[in-house]
Structures are given as structure tokens and as C-alpha cells.
């Protein structure tokens, strides 16, 4: 599992490079998002384009990120959902909590436009 972080244009992009986001690797993502907000980031985008499977621990890491975003008065957006990821967000209704974009490009256009 690898996480790429790119900062620029007011948005920190976190690309999660693994097919699974579950109990075995969600902690790393959670800490990484927290670290970005603690470090002063206001807009964080997590791109999940490579993720084929997410479980409740993976969702938990993103919910934790959402709460950190609120606590630090920032925003957390998500992009690149594959089918199983999308259906998990729909099932739990977490799709109503996050700003979700089809792709990283679409997210960046929206987030930088918002500024």
C-alpha cells in the first residue's frame, strides 16, 4: 500500500494506491489525513481510483477525516469511486456527508473554483 501526497493550488491531493482499503491499512490513511489538516491544509482530496474494495474500517478512516476537516474548519472531498466503493457509500448514506467527484480532475476544477 502506498499513499502519494501532492500539495498545490490550495488543495492537498492524497492518492491512495491500493486495491483494498480495509482494517489492515485504513489506519495509515486516517493518520495521513489528520496530519494534513493539523499541518494547516484546508482542502484535502482523497482519490480512491485504485480502490476496488472498501470495508467499514476503510469508511471509518474517511469518517475520521471528515470529522477532522470539521474540527479544523477545512473540507475533505473524495474522488474516483469504483462500483463497490460507491455502493458502500450509498448503503451507509455517507455519500451525503462527503463531496464526491467522478475524477481527480473534476474535483480539482470544483475545489479550486470554489476558492
Amino acid at each position, binding site marked *: 500500500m502506498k499513499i502519494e501526497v501532492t500539495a498545490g493550488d490550495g488543495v492537498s491531493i492524497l492518492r491512495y494506491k491500493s486495491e483494498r482499503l480495509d482494517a489492515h491499512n485504513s489506519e495509515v490513511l486516517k493518520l495521513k489525513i489528520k496530519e494534513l489538516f493539523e499541518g494547516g491544509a484546508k482542502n484535502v482530496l482523497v482519490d480512491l481510483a485504485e480502490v476496488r474494495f472498501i470495508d467499514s474500517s476503510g*469508511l471509518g478512516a474517511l469518517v*475520521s477525516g471528515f470529522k477532522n476537516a470539521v474540527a479544523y474548519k477545512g473540507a475533505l472531498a473524495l474522488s474516483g469511486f469504483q462500483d463497490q466503493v460507491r455502493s458502500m457509500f450509498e448503503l451507509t448514506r455517507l455519500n451525503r456527508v462527503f463531496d464526491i467527484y467522478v475524477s481527480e480532475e473534476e474535483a480539482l476544477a470544483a475545489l479550486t473554483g470554489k476558492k
Partner: protein
Amino acid sequence: MTKKGNRVVGRPDSRYPDIPALDAYSREMATASKIQQSLLPDVPPAMRGVRMACRSIPAHVVGGDYYDFFRWDDSSLDLVIADVSGHNLGSALIMVETRSVLRAHAFRSGNAGDALAVLNELLYDDLSRTELFISMFYAKFSSETRLLTYANGGHNPPLLLRCGQPGYVELDADGMVLGVLKGVEFEEKNLLLREGDVLTFYTDGITESPNDSGELFGSERLYQALYAYRGAPPEEIIEGVLKRVHEFSGQKTLRDDVSLVVLKID
């Protein structure tokens, strides 16, 4: 391993067969496992007009699955099934807290949607601190009128197989997993059940059980299993579903906690 009611308890025994040789940590975890399993009902309460069965198997020593029955009288009960995110000791502790809150409040008079809304408010702070959330389905059933009212907090929708009809109905209602936002409203829906209907509540350990190529068991296979065993008593329906999940995943140990509650209307 010992059998208690229709459920296997003392799960860690197979992993730690030599009890005296266990280190202190494993012994503590084995105790936690035993206590947690003892908090789940062995068997559903007996009620006129409906037969029920339940089963929960943690993936690890302890887990975050929970189900419960609150029998108010001969013909009415509340049924809850829930899944705390993760499947570790933290999830298990929150599962125990959820059970305590539910039992202390006893939502007899309120409706199912209000029960979830109240629980969300009561558990929100602890869930935020622990960075966990809960999916929960809350149902109220009267075997006298056969009316089922329900609300859903982002849990896998139970599957209803109507007697004599192919296909299935997923019981969903608008809501959200508990512990993410405050002030969430939960829609409540009603449904009239009929004689011979089979209603199955489950946690995602069933439908997300993967096979060797990463394909998930899914709700369609769950439906096929339920359809194949629909004529059997609820205990055998559960056995049948678990058998198919094991065959599909090809694994002895499941990756996630799995729980099932089956109701068959008489």
C-alpha cells in the same frame, strides 16, 4: 468448543487449544470473547405466529456485530441488528455500550425511527472519540397483526422472500449510519408480512465474503441460498446460508464477523 443453544461459544478454543499455555494477553482476550458472545441472545424469544433463529460468528476473537430481541408481550417484539465499524476490541467495546444503551432505554412506546434518532444522539460523542460508527436496522413486529415497522441506519437492508413468489424485497428506509452526524432523522416504513414469508436480517460479513478471485458473495447469492432453503425451519435456513458462504469463500475462517437472524411467519 462447546455448544450453547443453537450457537457455538468459546470460539478461541480452536485457535488456542492448550489453555494453560496461553499467555496473559490471549487469556484476557479469550475471556473478553466469552463475555461478548454471552451478551448475544442464544436463541430468539418464543412468540406466537413466528419462528425465529439467530447466529453470530466473530471473525477474530471479538467483533462488532450485534443483534438483540426485545419481547414486549406474547405477540410483539423489537428486533435490532447492528455492526460497529472495524472488527476488533474497540468495536467490541462499543458493541457492548450500544447494547447497554438499547436495553436501558427500551423503546417500547416510540417508533423505530425515533429509536435510531435517540441512539444516534446518545452514542454520538463516544463514537466520535473512538472514531467508529454503527450501522443499525431497527424493526418492530406484531405477530398478531403481522405488521412490521422499521427504520434503517445505513445497515444492509434485510431480505424478504414472499411466500410463493420468486424474487426478493430489500427493506430499506432513509437514514444514516450512527455516529457521523448529529440531528439525523430516520424514516420509518411499514410492511404487512404474510404467512410463509421469510425475513432475513444480516451483517455485511455475509455479502462481502470474497472468493479466491476477489469476487464478493453479494446479496444475489444470499437470495439464492435463502430461496433454496426457504421451506426449511429458520435454524436450517441459517445453516444453509453459512454453508454456501463457506463453500463460496473456500475459507475456514471468515474475514469479517457474520450474523444472521431469520424470521419465518406462521
